[in-house]
């Protein structure tokens, strides 16, 4: 019937119940990362800054998705769709950015040689 044979608990449900303690650890990590990102914004690292900020934001998002949103304990199918959604986001960003970073080649055809 269903695609997945996820581990069923005693009640016959697929639900893995995450403990409040685990949530507490995640929120602590999130706070740490938040202060880290604020701190890093005050340090001038030139072109590195945006990448650090993005990396921190991505790790926060990953924590929220995996633990708060239970994806770590979900069925493989759910995990695929979550990953797919974010992957499509990268397609959108990637293909658009290709245009804007290579614009100079249009106005300046010498760049081709």
């Amino acid at each position, binding site marked *: 019937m269903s695609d997945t044979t996820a581990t069923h608990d005693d009640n016959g449900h697929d639900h893995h119940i995450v403990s409040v303690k685990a949530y507490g650890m995640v929120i602590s990590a999130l706070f740490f990362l938040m202060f880290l990102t604020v701190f890093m914004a005050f340090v001038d690292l030139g072109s590195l800054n945006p990448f650090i900020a993005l990396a921190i934001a991505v790790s926060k998002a990953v924590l929220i998705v995996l633990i708060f949103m239970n994806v770590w304990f979900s069925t493989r199918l759910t995990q695929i769709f979550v990953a797919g959604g974010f992957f499509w986001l990268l397609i959108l960003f990637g293909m658009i950015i290709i245009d804007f970073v290579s614009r100079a080649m*249009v*106005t*300046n*055809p010498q760049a*081709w040689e």
Partner: protein
Amino acid sequence: MFENYLMPESASTIAPRVDALIWVLTGMSAFFFFAVVAALAFLAIKYRKGSDANRDLAHPDNDALEITWTVLPTILAVVMFVVSTAIFLQYRQIPEGASEIYVTGKQWMWKLQHPSGKREINSLHVPVGVPIKLTMTSEDVLHSFFVPAFRVKQDVLPGRYTTLWFEATKPGTYHLFCTEYCGTDHSRMIGSVTVLEQADYQRWLESDDSVMASNLTPGEALYAKHGCVTCHDGGDAARGPMLAGKYGTEETLNSGETIIIDDEYIRESIYNPQAKLVAGYAPLMPVFKNLINEEELFLLIEHIKSMEDTEASN
């Protein structure tokens, strides 16, 4: 020949190459079309219900066949891609020394400006056998500059320059269309491109004296009118960089980056002077955004370029 029935007249150096590409692709498409339709018709008739065709061992899968008709079209597609892209790159490779014409699109007309300052509306005169580079912008919405006989087309955008080049091969008068929908009179935003023999072109250039009457070119006049000369003449009091001879050269900015001084940079520096300051200069220049329109901008750019010429000849 069939060319005037199936394709518009072919009147530029790139047109025969594009036509060859189009006919090869059309031929290939036609081949596949007729091959598949013939197969469909043959099978439909042979295996119609009630026919006594042999229906034994009709296996519904054949991986070898599948792979064949996956891989072969893929190879063909890649070959077509390479050829098509090679021709497209010729559209983008503007020959050295092409003579420049500035184009402004505006609802619903084309305004064209020759280097001499001569201006035209909805008609363009060019000499035969000379590569022409068009630098184009729009004062309002998107337009697209299309001359079917030259097989050239390029969108014209507000706030930015796009370029296009062609070399006409045949004297005559050809259609000029706007092909990017631009509002009410989109279909009337049309004109003509007249290709003249070199001598005729010279005569045409000199025929109209309304523009050349002043001993200043229009760009020179604007340059004087807006007082550019007070800061950019290179004298001791100059608060801005000297412009003569700078076009096309490299310059270092305050930020340490280097840039090439081109049309786009001059445009930006007039409309938004503080964006990219040349190293060593203070942000003093006023913003000319609302004082100079796109057409006048072209005249100024043309003048700044010509300043290089006088410098070099002296």
